[in-house]
């Protein structure tokens, strides 16, 4: 009987333990943020990696998400003559939900995995120990810039994705499906509130925190050579994606 409980309970204990470790890492990251040196250059390098270099993939996914949304909602709304609402639907979906979520998932795949792999490799090749021996705290040198850059860049990527998605929806709705362009835009303006956009951006900042923190945590705890790096990378993508979607639900429930 006891073994049964142990068998069932152990994964939960491990999960809660891992969660606690991530929170501790967050606390130490925050505490390193406010201590000099501030590593401005490192932050900018990570901002380039997380933000600028993710731009193409975010533009492409954003555009096609908006376009497919336009097509799908068009057939639904056509059934009761509400085609004019396609624009508003695309805009609301993009700003409130799909912009932040899709951007976060793409960046997780591109950046979160890279963080886990890079830091993981540094761990197994003793580069992190080397940092310690040189009196440089790896949390401050490696993790803090990545977390800050992700928190700051995700909203910027998301606003680009929102905009491109709406433009894509406009292209499909107005050019291909012959919805009146004036009505299309007017409905967007009528239904979308500033708070929709802003709350979406707040969500994306949280997603940025999650994906960078998980990526760094997994990379930092890597053991077992090259295979360990692979394992850490995969786990970081899976855990980040799942956490982003779960936290998305709760954030949405709290904010909207």
């Amino acid at each position, binding site marked *: 009987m006891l073994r049964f409980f142990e068998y069932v309970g152990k994964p939960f204990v491990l999960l809660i333990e891992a969660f606690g470790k991530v929170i501790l890492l967050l606390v130490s990251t925050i505490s390193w943020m406010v201590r000099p040196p501030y590593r401005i250059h490192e932050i900018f390098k990570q901002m380039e990696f997380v933000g600028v270099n993710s731009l193409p993939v975010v533009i492409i996914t954003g555009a096609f998400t908006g376009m497919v949304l336009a097509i799908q909602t068009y057939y639904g709304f056509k059934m009761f003559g509400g085609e004019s609402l396609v624009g508003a639907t695309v805009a609301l979906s993009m700003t409130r939900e799909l912009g932040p979520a899709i951007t976060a998932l793409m960046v997780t795949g591109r950046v979160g995995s890279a963080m886990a792999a*890079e830091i993981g*490799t*540094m761990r197994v*090749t*003793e*580069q992190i*120990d*080397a940092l*310690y*021996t*040189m*009196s*440089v*705290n790896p949390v401050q040198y490696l993790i803090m810039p990545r977390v800050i850059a992700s928190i700051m860049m995700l909203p910027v990527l998301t606003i680009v994705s929102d905009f491109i998605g709406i433009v894509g929806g406009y292209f499909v709705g107005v050019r291909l499906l012959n919805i009146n362009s004036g009505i299309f835009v007017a409905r967007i303006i009528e239904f979308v509130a500033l708070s929709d956009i802003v709350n979406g951006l707040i969500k994306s900042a949280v997603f940025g925190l999650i994906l960078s923190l998980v990526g760094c945590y997994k990379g930092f705890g890597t053991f077992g050579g090259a295979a360990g790096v692979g394992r850490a990378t995969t786990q970081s993508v899976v855990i980040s994606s799942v956490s982003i979607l779960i936290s998305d639900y709760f954030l949405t429930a709290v904010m909207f």
Partner: protein
Amino acid sequence: MKIELLNVCKSFKGQVVLDNLNLTVEPNKITVIIGKSGGGKSVLLKHVIGLIRPDSGSVFIGDDEISALNDKKLNEIRKNFGMLFQDAALFDSMTVGDNIAFPIREHTRFSKAEIDVIVKEKLRQVGLKRVTQKMPSELSGGMRKRVGLARALALDPKIILFDEPTTGLDPIMCDAIDRLIVKTQRHTNATCLVISHDIDSTFKIAHKVAMLYDGKIIEYGSPDKIKWSENPVVKNFIAGKSISKH
């Protein structure tokens, strides 16, 4: 600077690695710790630099008990250290020049030009030229070790630690690295602590040798003393015979 370990105990997940270990490393000499692979040599080294804290016992660097210091003070002490890792542990996102300049940039306020001069000088000390712009992945194993040493020397440390400096190198390169260690020690007069399982190079470079076995230092002394030791474990290790447990 003197290094002293007193009654140090450390175990991982119930497995005892260091068992009441006592060792005093003499200042300004090369001390080599020998022992079989996986016998706790690296763990001992990490205790010396404060990467691992002992379960009990204490580690002294000079007059400071580093096993009892907080991170901030520990970082101050560590600025006296240089460490050469087994695979050099160069930052592979930086060029060779940036690798060597990294500790200087972190802990001093030298200008860019001054740092360039120091980097060139350190590379010259380890016998390398025209590699500053190369990435670590473009270098051979021996060159990486040399760059690693150059980085360890960057802040003119009082203590230099070497983690298996000759492992994975061909005999000629081994010899070159051994000479480099001796030369560096003479040049800087630093306290050098080397861990190795390479008997030949040990006798080439060591002023003092310590044998680690079963979590304890079972023999300590000059190379000659170790060579003629009566301890069967030491004897077998030097002769290169596998040791069967009693």
